[in-house]
């Protein structure tokens, strides 16, 4: 494949995963908010924080005040617009889908015809359906359908695409994005609700987060079978439980497996190993909230570095090709 295509195929994987993850996140948090009591700390703006946005600034751009309890309905509307339909929002589903198609269009010669078709269907669906007027009730259906269509693209690709550099880079892109999203969810939604001064964190189990990640049942299995000892909680599970396909540990494992065959694999593997070391060097259950927060920051920095290492494999000096 062309050196220039590395970034496109890598971003193709990232945007596809981002689309799926965002749709799941919107659904899970909608359920959480519908369930929760009025006095809950958690509100719609947290979703913006998870996506790396400054919620006060974003809401101000929609003419709303961050803390205004009188504007709850409008805030929900604005947050959803920002995450779903606003094409100018860098974190909206529509924007991610446009980026997805742009990258696919640029490397179409690498993609199987069937996948190209599924991507087109996904894009026209998203551009037509993700509009401002989506009601709460329609939203659930819409997000589920987007997730389903993302799975169609991945499934098509998985069953027909040649195994080679392009497939490896796509797989790495997906899992890097997934690890990034999981740590961001943990950072904002879990840690911000804990008391920062606490030494031992309370054992908690936030079913909606696990739902967002499609892992509620498997978490139950993990607890019921005492797979990580009595102190285990959702944080260990999401960081360290390698059998759960949305854990950071699993994502790193997949990145290492796909990176092994790529040129400059030592640099990729070294970066992955550093990240793996971070989550295994001490028992996560022993960490205080502050330490956990630091750990998650370190993981996020490591993910950014890994992204750069991958993008840079293409810019190495052009040596004669050896078969």
């Amino acid at each position, binding site marked *: 494949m062309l050196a*220039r295509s*590395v970034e496109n195929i890598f971003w193709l994987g990232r945007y596809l995963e981002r689309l799926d993850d965002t749709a799941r996140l919107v659904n899970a948090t909608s359920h959480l908010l519908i369930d929760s009591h009025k006095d809950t700390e958690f509100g719609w703006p947290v979703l913006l924080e998870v996506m790396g946005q400054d919620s006060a600034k974003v809401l101000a751009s929609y003419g709303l005040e961050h803390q205004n309890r009188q504007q709850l309905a409008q805030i929900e509307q604005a947050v959803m617009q920002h995450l779903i339909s606003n094409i100018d929002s860098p974190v909206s589903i529509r924007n991610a889908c446009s980026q997805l198609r742009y990258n696919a*269009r640029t490397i*179409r010669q690498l993609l199987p015809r069937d996948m*190209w078709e599924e991507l087109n269907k996904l894009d026209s669906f998203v551009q037509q359906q993700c509009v401002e007027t989506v009601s709460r009730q329609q939203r659930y259906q819409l997000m589920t359908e987007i997730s389903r269509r993302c799975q169609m693209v991945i499934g098509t690709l998985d069953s027909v695409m040649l195994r080679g550099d392009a497939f490896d880079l796509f797989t790495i892109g997906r899992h890097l994005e997934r690890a990034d999203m999981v740590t961001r969810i943990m950072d904002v939604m879990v840690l911000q609700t804990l008391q920062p001064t606490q030494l031992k964190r309370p054992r908690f189990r936030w079913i909606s987060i696990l739902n967002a990640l499609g892992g509620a049942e498997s978490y139950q299995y993990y607890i019921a079978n005492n797979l990580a000892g009595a102190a285990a909680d959702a944080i260990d599970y999401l960081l360290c439980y390698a059998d759960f396909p949305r854990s950071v540990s699993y994502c790193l494992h997949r990145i290492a497996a796909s990176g092994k065959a790529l*040129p400059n694999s030592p640099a990729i593997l070294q970066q992955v190993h550093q990240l793996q070391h971070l989550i295994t060097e001490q028992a996560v259950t022993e960490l205080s909230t502050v330490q956990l927060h630091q750990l998650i920051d370190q993981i996020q920095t490591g993910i950014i570095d890994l992204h750069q290492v991958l993008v840079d494999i293409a810019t190495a000096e052009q040596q004669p*090709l*050896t078969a």
Partner: protein
Amino acid sequence: MSLENFTGGRYPLLKNCFDELVATDGSARPPASAIARFIAKHGDLELCKRQLQLNQTISDMGVCFTLYADGANIDRAWPLDVIPRTIPSSEWQRTSAGLKQRLAALNLFIDDLYNEQKILKQGIVPAELILDSKNFLAPCQGVSPIHGVWANICGTDLVRDEHGQFLVLEDNLRVPSGVSYMLENRTVMKRVFPELFADSTIVPVDDYPAQLWQMLASLSPRGEHVPPCIVVLTPGIYNSAYFEHSFLAQQMGVELAENHDLFVEDDRVWLKTLRGKRQVDVIYRRIDDIFIDPQAFRPDSVLGIPGLIAVWRKGLVAIANAPGSGVADDKVIYSFVPKIIQYYLGEEPLLQNVETYLCQDPLQRSFVLANLDKLVVKPANESGGYGILIGPRASQSERDEMAMAIKANPRNFIAQPTLNLSTAPTLCEGMLEPRHLDLRPFILQGADLYCSTGGLSRVALTRGSLVVNSSQGGGSKDTWIINDEG
């Protein structure tokens, strides 16, 4: 089922035009009988439903083209009419033989022009026509590409006159486009009309990408024992034909390169791959030749690969079509093609030209100027249907303007009688109406000659219009070669 009345006699045949599907007595022509039966059985409403299904399929498949006028919206859905155009296979065989004959002669002609120039010395083609042409590229002189072939891919535009005879309208020897739409039209039609494919023997078109690959491979300077590295060279994702470039690369399983993916080093052309540089053997260029190497042609080109022409001249890389092929793709040269065929092949042309008046010739020029209201005037070196004057439909001031342009630069213009282009039934607002159309087959020449099965039928969607270009509101039809030879 009676086929005497196509669509129950409601189809308004145009006077003095040959209709592709319907005979003058209103009955379906034999290759169109399956279509006529379908319409008789299911009715117009079903056609409308299928047209909607067809449009959805095109959107799903991402078949699109780019109009520069559209600004940020880079992809526009490809227009395809629900009614195919049919041609009997016996007629197509004769036509494709004529197309191959024509390309073979044109390639002998180009090779001669850049080498011995026998045809000029013998005065069969006036030397000044060639030597003064901006399409005659000096850096190509003395080069003889492999197999002596310069134009490896040709898209010839055919029209039918009122007697139903195919005539050549122009030879596109530079970077002809449209073949991807020919292939995608068929894929779409098979999904939308599976029953019609079961009912008639429609000759498949889908071997074109394999034929194209094989032809390109036959150009490899390293011979047949080294697996060739072939690339499609595109100006990039914003080019109007980018869809086709990426489609052909995908279908042939080769890389789609932009100029900065290629570089020249040690007298070779290299491709920058993820795993290092790879030697390139054949470049299927979709960039105009004068932009391909700033060192050889236009120094201001930002699309080119510096040093490429020097490597090509040494025979260490093949370029298809070879730079300089456009010298024979000129509407003035066109009028000499019958003589060119006789000169090089000693054969009579199997396909006829449209009668053409050269404005360069004083006698012919005064005829053209006196008959501007009856003729079609074309610039010698434009494509895409730009700059054409259709005399009978133009205003007096447009004709006056053209008369001035002709007098100022007679070499640059030719004129032809206004043809009664053939028509085919086309779904227009729920009704079948006759619309004018042409046909662009694709002919390949490397070690062998190949002609596509049919080609791309382009149709003028506006009533009475003769302009079929998709950049100017034209549509398309799937072209069915129907086996009539048992």
